[in-house]
């Protein structure tokens, strides 16, 4: 790893993690809470990979699904306690740095330009890391994306879930 172990002192987040080191970096946006630009870039890059096989095949529907997923993630982050929001934003700030992306995905491409292979390598490295706090970061990203998509009724037909029962209909038949 290019970043030293000392740099990889993690603190946690929203089911999540982040690097203490990132706290020393200038923030690109004030810690207002919701997803910042760095966070949006990371989530936009990883969501299609985490959800590969789950999103609609039709390009238009797929685009809408991804947009709605990102909106739901932003809403989820805004609902987190301020401390968890700060930890997540620290993680995103770190991942905005080229050395971190090189260390974790062997690419210096920005998140906007990262290839699918880059992102898969990044996610696999987090998931399989010996360092608990990198696995915590994977967990946080996994949880945000999976919750955002599978909480969306658009996701339900493909998984055979018909949604909550209609209480009115239920009442009439019971």
């Amino acid at each position, binding site marked *: 790893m290019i970043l030293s172990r000392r740099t990889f002192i993690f603190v946690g987040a929203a089911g999540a993690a982040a690097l203490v080191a990132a706290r020393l970096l200038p923030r690109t946006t004030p810690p207002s809470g919701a997803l910042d630009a760095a966070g949006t870039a990371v989530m936009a890059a990883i969501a299609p*990979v985490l959800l590969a096989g789950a999103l609609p095949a039709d390009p238009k529907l797929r685009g809408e699904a991804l947009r709605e997923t990102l909106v739901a993630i932003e809403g989820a982050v805004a609902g987190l306690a301020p401390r968890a929001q700060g930890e997540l934003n620290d993680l995103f700030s770190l991942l905005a740095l080229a050395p971190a992306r090189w260390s974790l995905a062997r690419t210096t491409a920005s998140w906007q330009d990262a290839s699918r292979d880059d992102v898969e390598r990044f996610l696999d490295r987090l998931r399989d890391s010996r360092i608990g706090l990198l696995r915590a970061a994977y967990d946080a990203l996994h949880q945000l994306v999976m919750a955002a*998509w599978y909480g969306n009724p658009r996701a339900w037909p493909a998984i055979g879930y018909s949604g909550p029962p209609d209480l009115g209909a*239920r009442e009439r038949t019971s």
Partner: protein
Amino acid sequence: MMDTIADPVREGVARGWRVIDASTLTGDLTLEADVVIVGTGAGGGTAAEILAEAGLSVVLVEEGPLKSSSDFRMRESDAYPELYQESGARRTRDKAISILQGRCVGGGTTVNWTSSFRTPDATLAYWQRALGLAGFTPADLAPWFARMEARLSIAPWDVAPNANNAALARGATRIGISSGTIRRNVKGCWNLGYCGMGCPTNAKQSMLVTTIPGALARGATLVTHARAAAFTWHGDRVEALECLAMDARGTRPTSRRVAIRARAYVAAAGAIGTPALLLRSRVPDPHGVVGRRTFLHPTLVSAALMPERIEGYSGAPQTVYSDHYLDSLPLDGPMGFKLEAPPIHPMLTAITLPNHGDTHARRMRELPHLQVVLAILRDGFHADSPGGTVTLAGDGTPVLDYPLSPYLWEGARRAFAAMAEIQFAAGAKSVFPVHGDGVEFTSAAAARAAIENFDLRPLATPIVSAHVMGGAPLGADPRHAACDPQGRFHHLANLHVMDGSLFPTSIGANPQLSIYGIVAKLASGLAATLRG
């Protein structure tokens, strides 16, 4: 047609219940009462009604919102952010354990799965024998359990279990272990399966529709969106409770404050919130017991694919249990576990299933055939199971550090093996213990061999908890206990704890009825003292 279901909470508010939403305050507020109760869950709700029935004036303080049946739309995407601590994403310090706790009026009782067990005799016997706690034998508590069972309509559930629970019962029978049916606190239950998102029909007899309306009808005041910041105290007495008004989302304080003065103060903010409140208040704690010995019933998950449709999102979610792996081991021996089943809704399933991409997507497409068993580890009865510690982060919010010991992982390994064996016996085509990247097995022998060699470790093996207990334990000896056997804090005469924080170990069963019964006893004692 939702409007055909009466909403007793909205009706009560319309009739003039005293409810203050602190997020809307335009100035600071000062209240006075005989008793102020922090928290509206199983402990706070039970205490509120008993104290109000005794003719005492009561103020209830709740950090979360007041939501009721008209708001409960059975949508996970609404329920977790609105009704759960930290949007359902609360975790231990190292993030290895996910903690589901309610944060709304009614607390955990608004979102729990209705499982009702009296405190196991073995647990109470241990409290007496090993910890010297008097007054909490099964015979001492029986009348209090009976009282709360009557109040909350706790009764056997005679409806056939849903297919998910039925599979647990079938598998248990086939491998020759006992299982039973869980009693539930419901009245006229529609058997929908959405208890965890707030009961949309008011069938669940949570605090939200029972004791809290009971207290409000007797003139109690409920303050919502108010975070109890600290008690101020002098000498051996608490003088006030200072609260911060929260914004409507409940994440950040506004600039408004609420101060409440009372004769007695009751902390019932749950086993993370109560110790945190005591720590923020810098209460006298000469032996450092506050926040120590916090227990979680760490829970492992095993998923299986069944040939038949399971539809685990439908029907009462948790109705079958097995205590075989608790009862067949000595309480202070290897870690025992209770087996139960969870509801299987898309969002919770998607965040629980490991891995991503095609593997994850394929499993999600099999959702209707998914069967899930939980193993709830009984922590706190062994020297190698000291539980966790609640401390405060820089911003005053609680952090729970819960180290995962080899003793616990040994129990987890046996739990995975037992669950897989039961699921195959029940007819599973494949079983995938929720661990690592989620490898699946198509035979019991293969699963058994692999589980033996699982590399169990934090964050590779997801652990969940829905039961937080301890941190302000009962006991006569202040060197080991925060509260005396009447529930009074040892070092402040008018401060009482009435929630799951009181438990000196975990319960070894879903804790709601333990909280109801024990708090009913303690609150009745406090009511008698304050009236006398």
